[in-house]
């Protein structure tokens, strides 16, 4: 099993969710994060003085998938999150050693 961690633009979350659920992937966990990268932040004004705020609000989606779902899931996320602009974000993949569903004690692929 793999854990896909996608850092994307916040307003793309719904699109990505829809794309994943079309692959039959229903479960995921969303965190509001702040991103630093190539995409520039914004200027803020405070009583006439300007400040540069360099973080950008991002959404981090964590999706655990079966190994055989990985490629499709990656492509689905990539396609749905892409707007062609800097700051569209990144996808990270790590190996999952174990997954347990708390309620049923199921583990492994069954737990997803």
């Amino acid at each position: 099993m793999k854990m896909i961690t996608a850092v994307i633009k916040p307003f793309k979350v719904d699109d990505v969710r829809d794309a994943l659920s079309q692959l039959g992937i229903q479960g995921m966990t969303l965190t509001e994060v702040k991103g630093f990268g190539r995409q520039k932040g914004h200027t803020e004004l405070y009583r006439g003085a300007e400040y540069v705020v360099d973080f950008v609000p991002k959404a981090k989606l964590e999706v655990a998938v079966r190994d055989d779902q990985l490629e499709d899931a990656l492509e689905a996320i990539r396609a749905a999150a892409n707007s062609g602009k800097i700051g569209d974000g990144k996808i990270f993949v790590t190996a999952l050693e174990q997954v347990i569903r708390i309620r049923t004690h199921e583990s492994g692929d069954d737990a997803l």
Partner: protein
Amino acid sequence: MNKLLSLLSLGLLPAGAFAAEGIDPGASAWLLTATALVLMMTLPGLALFYAGLVRSKNVLSVLMQCFAIACVASLLWLVVGYTMAFGAGGNGFIGGFGNVMLAQVFENTLTATLSADVMVPESLFAMFQMTFAVITPALICGAYAERMRFGAMLLFSAVWLLAVYAPITHWVWHSDGWLFKEGLLDFAGGTVVHITAGVAALVAALVLGPRKGFPQQPMMPHNLTMAATGAGLLWVGWFGFNAGSALAADGNAAMAALSTHISAAAGAFAWMCIEWIRHGKPSALGIITGMVAGLGTITPASGYVGPGGALVIGLSAGVVCFFATMAIKRKLKIDDSLDVFPVHGVGGILGTFLAGIFASDALGVFSGQGYAEGVTMGSQVGVQLLGIVATGLYTAAVTWVLLKLVGLVTPLRVSSDEETEGLDLVLHDERGYDIR
């Protein structure tokens, strides 16, 4: 009797001797309301305005400062403050001590205002003035926000009220006061409230030193919606502050309300336009700051000028206070955290000066209510400058001494680590928000 002299000789009249028939119920009704409005300016108005502008780790410390000052200033005003300002039997510099604990102020004690025939309960006048004694030290909070220790802050505010605010109130608003006798025009507190608070703020910022990280690290407001809420309440409450200072429900009060409102709108508009031009975008914080500048600046002039004069005063307030803020914070790098001096101090100075000009009844559509007999624009402006310099210097000197003395008793600032952690947890064991 000349209107311009008519404002506030009342504290000195022998009390208790008036028949109940003499009371003006309309004036009393308005003064009761105005008192509530001025209290609302501090709580929750100013408290929210200031608290929204600090970082969220310090939000409660600011609210707490405003509440604690409101309590202590009220109690002190009852005990000795009122009598030091308005007590009978004083001299040109300080009131007599006949009204300690509001002695001699009974339920049926009336006080005359110089509006012929308008008498109001002296307890009401004392209460109205108490709300001014509350807001003035509270205004200073903005200067030392995010770093001053609570105990030191409270001690300083208490002694400052007695050593700076009460005497200057006597000078300007009691008919024995030396500036009153000079003919200084300060309708609702340009010198008494805004110059004293603004100058004290500057001194406090210098004595305490800048916040850790200033000026490299931006310290952005944590909740501009809170600041905007406070700003709205300040605007509304200021009707009580300025129009209430007419001590009557008459044309003078009405004109003061109108001037106040116009100046607020003009100050906000001017600040907004400057930001728009210089930065390309106007900001919410900008418009409300300009509004406060407009309000502070019209305060000394409000009952003496007309709406045309108020328009000019408000526009100048927006422009001058904007550039003053830039100069103090960005050029001089003085960390008056919430810009009390450039907004209130500079506004108070500007307004006191302009009151001397726009009180003239010879300016066409920009005319005011006219000077006292024998007074010219030149002589009036001279008196206004005298008032500005005298109150400014006295405040600066005494504030400096008081802060140094308080600093001997108890440290003024929290430690560097405590400043990083935030005053709410360090000083009050509380957090502002726990929103999930």
